């Protein structure tokens, strides 16, 4: 299988990108406001359900089962979708998916398409590719429209423009829709988007979407949305093309009874989002005459191999982990420099790239575990983060630079010392003598030298005590008595 390709990925690592974004106080204010509001709403509607934990267990079970039999359920979906009049395509990577979609659009001689917000199309860089072939893709989700007209990038996968406030949105719409008189009330901005897009819904004949779920049992596709732009795109045009990750399949129609409870409550803090659409293939006299599903692998299938990593693919893209993450809260989504931001992005992105890109992302977390607690399908994100950190280290150890790097040598040295009681004791004695040059009068080390300086940048380190516990214990054993004054004195230094 060829290497997966992904769009707009930069070579900067997370700390570099985050540092720059942390300086943007308007952005931080907007992100903080949005995530606070969603979290409060989410907590309220989750608390309403006494069976929430049982729903999480069920959702986790359904998704894990689907992944464990993914080949079977994909084939079953394909068969049933085809039987219902849909056409199923398979794309190993972004290039194949782009080629298939472009071919379908060109076959209908369309110069414009309307789009429902879809992460997979971001992932394969669809809009840019279509543009290069003279096809204009119009985003129809309000936030995606803001992002597209603002020549910006999405920063959250449920509310992609949460980093923009109303004045910023107004400025974009005034410029791009030629509406100099436009007000900045959210109602005015919505009305402008409604008028701008309605003409397109009624005119454009090809639509592109993603999907939230594929149902193996009957070939159904489910899309969850709020504004009605999704319904417009998937019922009014003649041709609908849905680009969907292979992991999105679930076994049965009735499994939606779980996921359609947990997804809206987790994603937008609503009991149910305004619109869910579920359909199978094509239906005479209702909706598109031609329906295509493009199943996208693009680095997903290898993730199934390891149990710790596989759970990543259970994700139903609710973004609750972003909203609750103390790191995301500070940096917003752009610092992750990938289509998928936040804790789930930190584990998904590097894996989709076979651990060749986004290698700093598994470290973009304090491992506090809040993401796991809110996850509606119980992805143990901290466990995956640690697993992936291990992989990064293993990879580094395979290169000469990595082998001779400070961290590897330091860790190897630490392992060597901790392996033996004598070596540890010797190291402690050396430390007690050596630390004299760095310990301040207050008994703390306020600044470590060279490579170790990072540790003391934001905290003080306690000096080693005059007598270690191990020395005290040895002394106590050899004197054959209960703790003595000297021992107490030794301990006082700790």
């Amino acid at each position, binding site marked *: 299988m060829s290497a997966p390709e992904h769009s707009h990925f930069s070579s900067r690592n997370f700390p570099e990108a985050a540092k720059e974004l942390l300086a943007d106080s308007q952005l931080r204010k907007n992100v903080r406001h949005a995530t606070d509001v969603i979290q409060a709403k989410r907590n309220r509607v989750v608390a309403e359900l006494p069976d929430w934990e049982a729903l999480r267990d069920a959702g986790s*079970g359904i998704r894990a089962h689907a992944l464990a039999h993914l080949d079977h359920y994909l084939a079953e979906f394909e068969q049933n979708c085809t039987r219902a009049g849909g056409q199923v395509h398979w794309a190993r990577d972004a290039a194949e998916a782009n080629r298939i979609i472009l071919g379908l659009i060109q076959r209908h001689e369309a110069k414009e398409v309307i789009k429902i917000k879809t992460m997979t199309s971001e992932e394969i860089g669809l809009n840019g590719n279509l543009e290069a072939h003279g096809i204009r893709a119009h985003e129809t989700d309000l936030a995606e429209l803001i992002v597209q007209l603002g020549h910006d990038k999405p920063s959250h996968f449920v509310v992609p423009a949460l980093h923009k406030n109303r004045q910023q949105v107004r400025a974009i719409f005034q410029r791009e829709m030629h509406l100099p008189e436009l007000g900045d009330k959210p109602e005015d901005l919505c009305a402008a988007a409604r008028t701008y897009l309605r003409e397109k819904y009624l005119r454009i004949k090809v639509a592109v979407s993603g999907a939230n779920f594929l149902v193996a049992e009957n070939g159904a596709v489910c899309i969850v949305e709020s504004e009605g732009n999704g319904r417009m795109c998937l019922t009014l045009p003649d041709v609908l093309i849905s680009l969907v990750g292979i992991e999105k399949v679930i076994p049965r129609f009735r499994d939606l009874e779980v996921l359609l409870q947990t997804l809206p409550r987790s994603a937008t803090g609503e009991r149910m989002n305004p619109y869910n659409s579920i359909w199978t293939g094509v239906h005479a006299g209702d909706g598109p005459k031609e329906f295509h599903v493009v199943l996208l692998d693009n680095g997903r299938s290898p993730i199934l191999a390891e149990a710790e990593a596989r759970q990543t693919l259970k994700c139903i893209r609710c973004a609750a982990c972003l909203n609750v993450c103390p790191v995301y809260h500070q940096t917003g989504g752009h610092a992750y420099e990938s289509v998928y931001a936040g804790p789930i992005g930190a584990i998904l992105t590097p894996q989709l790239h076979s651990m060749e890109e986004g290698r700093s992302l598994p470290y973009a977390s304090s491992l506090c575990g809040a993401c796991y607690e809110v996850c509606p399908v119980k992805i143990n994100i901290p466990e995956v983060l640690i697993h992936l950190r291990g992989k990064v280290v293993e990879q580094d150890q395979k290169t000469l630079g990595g082998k001779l790097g400070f961290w590897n040598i330091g860790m190897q040295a630490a392992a060597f010392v901790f392996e033996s009681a004598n070596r540890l004791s010797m190291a402690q004695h050396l430390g007690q003598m050596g630390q004299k040059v760095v310990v301040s009068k207050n008994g703390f080390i306020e600044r470590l030298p060279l490579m170790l300086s990072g540790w003391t940048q934001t905290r003080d380190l306690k000096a080693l005590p005059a007598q270690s516990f191990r020395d005290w214990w040895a002394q106590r054993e050899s004197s054959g008595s209960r703790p003595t004054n000297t021992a107490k004195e030794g301990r006082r230094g700790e």
Partner: protein
Amino acid sequence: MASESEARGAILSSIRSALRAPAEHDDGARQAEYEGLPRGYKRAATLQGEALLALFTHRLIEYDAGVARVPRAQIADAVARLLGKRGLKRIAIADDLPAEWLPCGFQFEKASAFGAQQLDELEGALTGCAVAIAETGTIVLQNAAAQGPRSLSLVPDYHLCVVFAAQVVETVPECFARLDATAALPTTFISGPSATADIEMTRIKGVHGPRFLDVLMVE
């Protein structure tokens, strides 16, 4: 396309090798594993009658939908009152909408065959529903009796939906149990008017779908 069938084979074999799946599927084992999945969540109703309808009404109002309750014999009168209040005249309906729901003095268009452009010129839509969920304030429409194609309840700016008390269930799982037999039909779950919170997380009614939703609950 040759490369596509090649892609299909490559993806499925990559999945199988990652899963270390045996060449032959064991359907029985998979079935048993599926049946054994945890299902400890609430699947049956705890509310009935008036309490159930009260919850449904409360949830609809929270979404800014309008709610009116009438006995079966007064559907047409209530439709006339609700449309009249908003000054709406030209209303889209499904071809098989019961004639006794329709009051005089309005222009009801059997719009199933209408294109989007024609629908856009109408002022509202009147439909029935397949089932309604009290807990989430949701009405579910399918392309079936009195409901018509999906565009009907989408393009016009106003949607009036007739819901019979017997169609209201309490929970989402009960709804799916009722839909199971007709799962292949185009299905839309509607919870309140079209809305967005994309700008500063402020909920705004009516972006692209109908800005106004009324539910006529019939006992």
